[in-house]
């Protein structure tokens, strides 16, 4: 039966996450953005609440949370601050990719540590050059006895500093031109060099670095998945995309709330700006698009939990969420006028953060392609992608 009612468990999780977002993330967001880091005490609190390992399977010490619940929790946390969220401890996006590709024992080995103490992991897939979407991986993994040697340059790696392991995309000779493999590389391995920290559009509490792989020697069992096409990589990233989309909705919800309250107090031409339809209708559209996108995202999450084929629904829902979040955060800045553009108010930050969030996972072009091909049944009809 169609229902939008949260279970009691989900309500409890939502309230816990909301409380943390409200009392810990939101008040510290600007300071963390300026400092480019999250204080250790807050990281500890986040870890103690178990927020870093909610999605991990139970055998890896996690809560094994389903995707609907995850979408609900991540929306609340995003509402608090997405930048801080991506500076928090835990396996993060690394975890979702490992969960989607590795066998249970490997998952336990690679992910078990995050439940035990503060630790970070990072994903190093993207590379310089046009595209930056997985197609153009030039990093190579050359077999060397039972091992591999990695050579390459990763341009943008979120959380590279302080991570204890990386998931690196590289091409083995077997992968040929159009596929890639994913390897786990432990921090401190010889030849792994952290580049300069980037300054970024948004999410500045989190750190982005470049990473050089200069003949990094890794054991054969570091190979987590081989022969992935860009389309398969998209599927592997699906859950990470879902989480990012939920976070984007949370940020956007914050923006709609803020802009509504502002419009309910700000006056121009002798009346509240809320009374201008150019303002109120804009807000109505922002709220409506978020509501629509949340429904679709929940349906995708639910379908994933049911083990259904989500090759259309998931990228479609993520696109819908990104579109709504971009629209709503831009709208919030617009409705505050000049005040929205300066840092006295949070809306300019939220607009930048959402724009940045949409670049961390599957990209718009690939998501669109995947959704369209699946929706039209073109992939299964043998039309080449």
């Amino acid at each position: 039966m169609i229902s939008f009612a949260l279970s009691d468990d989900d309500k409890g999780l939502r309230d816990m996450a909301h409380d943390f977002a409200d009392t810990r993330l939101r008040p510290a967001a600007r300071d963390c953005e300026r400092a480019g880091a999250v204080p250790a005490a807050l990281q500890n609190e986040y870890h103690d609440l178990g927020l870093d390992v909610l999605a991990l399977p139970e055998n890896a010490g996690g809560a094994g949370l389903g995707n609907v619940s995850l979408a609900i929790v991540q929306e609340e946390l995003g509402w608090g601050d997405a930048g801080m969220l991506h500076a928090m401890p835990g396996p993060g996006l690394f975890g979702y990719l490992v969960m989607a590709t590795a066998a249970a024992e490997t998952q336990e080995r690679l992910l078990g540590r995050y439940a035990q103490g503060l630790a970070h992991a990072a994903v190093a897939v993207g590379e310089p050059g046009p595209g930056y979407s997985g197609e153009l991986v030039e990093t190579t993994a050359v077999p060397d006895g039972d091992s591999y040697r990695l050579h390459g340059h990763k341009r943008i790696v979120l959380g590279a500093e302080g991570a204890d392991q990386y998931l690196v995309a590289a091409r083995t000779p077997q992968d040929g031109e159009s596929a890639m493999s994913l390897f786990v590389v432990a921090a401190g391995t010889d030849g792994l060099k952290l580049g300069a920290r980037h300054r970024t559009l948004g999410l500045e509490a989190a750190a982005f670095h470049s990473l050089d792989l200069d003949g990094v020697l890794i054991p054969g069992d570091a190979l987590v998945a081989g022969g992935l096409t860009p389309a398969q990589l998209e599927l592997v990233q699906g859950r990470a995309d879902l989480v990012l989309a939920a976070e984007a909705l949370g940020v956007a919800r914050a923006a709609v709330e803020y802009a509504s309250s502002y419009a309910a107090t700000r006056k121009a031409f002798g009346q509240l700006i809320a009374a201008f339809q150019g303002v109120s209708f804009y807000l109505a559209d922002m709220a409506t698009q978020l509501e629509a996108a949340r429904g679709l995202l929940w349906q995708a999450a639910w379908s994933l939990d049911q083990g259904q084929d989500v090759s259309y629904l998931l990228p479609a829902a993520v696109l819908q969420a990104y579109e709504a979040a971009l629209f709503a955060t831009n709208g919030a800045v617009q409705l505050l006028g000049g005040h929205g553009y300066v840092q006295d108010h949070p809306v300019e930050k939220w607009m930048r953060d959402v724009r940045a969030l949409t670049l961390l996972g599957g990209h718009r072009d690939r998501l669109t392609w995947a959704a369209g091909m699946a929706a039209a049944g073109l992939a299964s009809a043998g039309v080449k992608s």
Partner: protein
Amino acid sequence: MIEFELSPQQRQLKEFLHWFAEQQVRPASLEADKNHDTPLPLLQQAKAMGLSMESVPSGGGPGGVEGGQGERQGNRIGVIAAEELAWGDASFVLNLPGAGLGGPPVRFMGTPEQKERFLSIFNGPELRWGAYALTEPEAGSDVAGIRTTARKEGDHYILNGTKTFITNGAKASWNVVFATVDRNLGRAGHRAFVVEKGTPGFRVGRIMDKMGLRASETAELVFDNCVVPVENLLGGEERYLQREGFKVAMQTFDSSRPTVAAMAVGIARAAYERAREIARQNLMLGRPSPRYAAIVEALATMARKIDAARLLVWKAAWMADARVPNTKEASMSKAYAGQIGMEVCSMAIDVAAGAGLLHDEYLEKWFRDIKVYDIFEGTGQIQRLVVSRRIFDDLGVRI
């Protein structure tokens, strides 16, 4: 618990209605469009199947279908049914026999005697309709500004004025007509009457030609010293002393708007599926298409917007079933479905290109039909007005 599985009852109904829409409704729709009416045998068949304007477009009314374990699901069933049937032909849905939009006010406001008298006429085998006459030439969105007057004279009210755009208004056995006893009283002066066919002083002005939904009757009604017995004042005179009448009339929108939005979803889905079929044929035949990537993107965009609109509809319907106030969500669903419905039907024509022009390819009809979903049952702007008012109400500010 959050869930998107249809109940067995919902699924059965959906599959059955889809079959019916595909086999019977859509194939008849092009002729219906040309002849300005749904073929009578098809409506008789629908009636025999138990389909009516009661069970479908206003499935949420108190008469709506109840679910298994006592959980109300009439609104959810209503929107599922509306989507499937509108996928076949939207005009067909509006032509379904029954009290139509006139049903909710009679059910919500009518005395037991009135309900019996006006609703029982639909129980027989004949095809009969009811209608809802609120809009006037000078009062559409601004319904509070209606000018049709009602003057009491002994046992009667004398109605004077004109109603316009009334769906099924001419063929209806009765119309629920809104009029004012005193324009200075604003909404408090409004009264709802059931005006039966053949009432002296009541006549049909004209049937209007439209861009789309051409098989649906849209009538202008004229009340020229129309003599309506006091027993036809909905709810009786006391009711209006509580200033409740108009509010109740507006509340029917909370379940009708999601249903109308569901119809828009159904039309948009029809257009999308047809465009997808055409694109697939072209691409599978290997016809070189410089538009290949653009077409895939268009299909992805159409599909996700339709699905997002459906989720808004489902949420509003679910809230109505749970008796949670849903005015905001009902308007969200209508605003969004009306807007993306138009976008999707237009994109479908882009994808189909030449075929989008041709009457027998359906796409041009759906493009014409969908437009009104951003207009009737409250325009897109009025829905945004409702949504934004609710947002600011929650902040304690009245706009």
